[in-house]
């Protein structure tokens, strides 16, 4: 066990850069002089967050005071689903792509120790979120019911174990995907396709199982409780049922069985997965290698094609890069699936209402807003320069105009969002029986937003390049450029909302009204986006070029 703890301590310290918290470097000394202030600020942010969740949830506790079990169920199911999806996403990174594999395998660790450590690390990462989000909810229920200290101890202890099964099952499924993917030459791509399809399947399945359509049609809370909707769902996932029973009716036996199931699952997991864990890791680390290549006449392609092909390969070869930038488009795909689902259930009734023709511009506006929201938050260009890292010298020394390099990077950002935008526009047209001018407005806004955020992402990355990274994650996920770019994406959403509010809802200019003004506003907004795109492109060609030249390779 001492080896396990030594490894866990070292790995956590390294992953979360804990040294920086206690560093005695000049920079940190400077910061620690402001220590009390920083600590107060951090505590204040935490307190505001906890208070926000607590207050928000207290409202639901009041609303459902006669059916608190619903809230326990929501906590258990919500935490389980989030953890499950988180694990499917993170297991490949934490368990099958860890950088210290060679180091650990050359040391006298049993494979089971390494597996345990990696799972516990994944668990710890998830627990922070668990307690920050679901902890205040359980406290809100406790204060509302006037529970004693035993409730708080029991609920927070049981909460600790809620993510256990989802993490174990998620790891097994993630492992299975990785194992199958490792059989293919394009391991990363196959694994990404598996994971995306699986998450989509969960969404579709969850819509299908419990009669969500029935839930959507019911607005009366009491009716929901009476129809035992939640008990039905809870029975489909026994750990959530046990968690709910244990805390709702202080059922000690349910609590004990809940703990027992989780601990037994953990033991079984370790027993059966240790061999698989090592095998999958070995298979993934063996690069496909053939020695039967015979030289063939090579095809010639232009500089742009070569650059674009290279950028596209680099993008799809990084699991984290694709996941991080494709999460927005995934929301788009989920939305598309929901639309198809609605098309079979709620929509026919809606389409028959006499007001529907007048609602069409609103629907087009909502669709465009959702596209802006889902497709503009994480452009690939926000990390494209940083991702080149120490290999940037190659790009800098190429005898190619910088604009061509820009476009090779920008076009990569079109690969996933553009087909999704076209698909959503066509689906909206067919499902909502929109006019051509409505569909065109959706398409135009979607495409222009993608172009704009590609430009802004690139410009921001030129401003804040992070070239000297030790792991690609630092460039792809945790760089300043990516953060700023996310805020710019949100800014665009806010801008669209504010514009709509001022020009259409309030009718400040042109006397636009909601019923007639939505479509002209959309075309006006599209024109505004064209102007913005042109402005940023000029910036990229002028100041951006200087920034490009100034980056040290």
């Amino acid at each position, binding site marked *: 066990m001492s080896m396990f703890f030594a490894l866990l301590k070292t790995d956590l310290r390294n992953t979360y850069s804990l040294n920086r918290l206690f560093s005695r470097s000049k920079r940190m000394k400077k910061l620690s002089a402001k220590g009390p202030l920083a600590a107060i600020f951090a505590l204040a942010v935490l307190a505001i967050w906890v208070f926000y969740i607590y207050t928000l949830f207290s409202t639901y506790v009041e609303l459902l005071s006669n059916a608190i079990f619903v809230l326990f169920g929501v906590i258990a199911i919500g935490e389980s689903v989030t953890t499950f999806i988180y694990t499917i996403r993170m297991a490949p990174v934490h368990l099958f792509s860890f950088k210290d594999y060679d180091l650990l395998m050359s040391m*006298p660790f049993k494979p089971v120790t390494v597996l345990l450590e990696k799972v516990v690390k994944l668990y710890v990462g998830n627990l922070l979120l668990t307690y920050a989000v679901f902890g205040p909810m359980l406290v809100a229920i406790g204060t509302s019911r006037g529970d004693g200290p035993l409730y708080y101890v029991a609920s927070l202890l049981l909460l600790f174990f809620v993510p256990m099964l989802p993490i174990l099952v998620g790891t097994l499924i993630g492992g299975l995907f990785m194992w199958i993917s490792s059989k293919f*030459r394009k391991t990363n791509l196959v694994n990404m396709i598996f994971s995306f399809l699986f998450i989509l399947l969960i969404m579709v399945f969850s819509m299908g199982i419990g009669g969500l359509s029935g839930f959507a049609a019911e607005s009366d809370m009491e009716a929901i409780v009476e129809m035992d909707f939640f008990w039905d769902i809870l029975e489909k996932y026994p750990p959530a049922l046990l968690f709910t029973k244990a805390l709702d009716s202080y059922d000690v036996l349910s609590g004990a069985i809940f703990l027992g199931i989780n601990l037994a699952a953990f033991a079984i997991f370790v027993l059966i997965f240790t061999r698989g864990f090592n095998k999958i890791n070995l298979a993934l680390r063996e690069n496909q290698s053939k020695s039967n290549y015979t030289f063939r006449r090579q095809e010639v392609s232009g500089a742009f094609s070569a650059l674009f092909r290279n950028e596209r390969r680099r993008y799809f070869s990084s699991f984290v890069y694709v996941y991080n930038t494709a999460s927005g488009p995934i929301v788009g795909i989920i939305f598309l699936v929901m639309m198809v689902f609605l098309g079979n259930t709620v929509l026919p009734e809606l389409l028959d209402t006499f007001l529907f023709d007048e609602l069409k511009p609103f629907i087009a506006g909502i669709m465009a807003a959702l596209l802006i929201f889902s497709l503009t938050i994480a452009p690939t260009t926000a990390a494209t320069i940083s991702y080149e890292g120490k290999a940037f010298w190659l790009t800098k020394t190429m005898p190619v105009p910088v604009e061509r390099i820009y476009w090779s990077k920008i076009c990569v950002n079109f690969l996933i969002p553009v087909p999704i935008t076209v698909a959503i526009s066509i689906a909206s047209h067919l499902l909502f029986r929109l006019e051509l001018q409505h569909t065109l407005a959706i398409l135009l806004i979607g495409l222009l937003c993608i172009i704009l955020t590609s430009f802004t992402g690139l410009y921001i990355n030129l401003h804040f390049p992070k070239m000297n990274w030790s792991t690609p994650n630092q460039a792809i996920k945790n760089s300043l450029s990516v953060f700023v770019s996310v805020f710019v994406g949100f800014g665009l959403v806010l801008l669209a909302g504010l514009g709509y509010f001022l020009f259409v809802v309030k009718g400040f200019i042109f006397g636009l009204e909601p019923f007639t003004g939505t479509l002209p506003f959309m075309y006006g907004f599209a024109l505004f986006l064209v102007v913005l795109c042109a402005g940023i492109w000029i910036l990229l060609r002028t100041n951006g070029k200087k920034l490009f030249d100034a980056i040290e390779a």
Partner: protein
Amino acid sequence: MLSIQHLTKVYKGGKKAVDDLSLEINAGDIFGFIGHNGAGKTTTIKCATGILDFSDGEIFVDGISIKEDPIACKKRIAYVPDNPEIYENLTGIQYLNFIADIYEVPKEVRNQRMKEYGDTFELTSDMGSQISSYSHGMKQKLVLISALLHDPKLLILDEPFVGLDPKASFTLKEMMRQMCQRGCAIFFSTHVLEVAEKFCTNIAIIKAGKVIVNGKTQDIVGDKSLEELFLGLLEE
């Protein structure tokens, strides 16, 4: 100390990286493993250290099969990779303590060795800094120190002289000699033929996964230089 018998390693895709390779490295040997890029040196080393599984053959460390008791084997080995991937957000001293914990090096011994090797490689003053701030050579020195902490019976190094300054290279060679005199076996890959010729007691040359020459350095080289011999063999 290290016995590699009929080792074969086939990668997915079908490439035979190592083909029926056999080597014997005894206590007191400094064994140089030479070959051009992609010849199978690193694959052999990774199989010998238990990092890679292999298709056929056997590997014994101090008489113990690495397949049957990998932990016991690894306790006797220290491995220095060609490109040290270590925990960048630790300080040097934290990393050394981590390694010492894993290999159960007693407190007094680890303190004495860390200080001694730290001074020898002129790294002591930087041990409090984050590894991310180290140069390639400093990382290499740190990994070398960590490899020596538990006084291994078998030291396996992949291109150990790459990135080291001349003084550190000299120090490393001296340490390797001393270790051999104490009965340790050293197995390392290198492209520096001059070092192999002057420094190794034994050498093996690998080409396309197969050992084409193996034996005492003096017997192999004879009147020629190792460079001449190596280039001649590659051209055959």
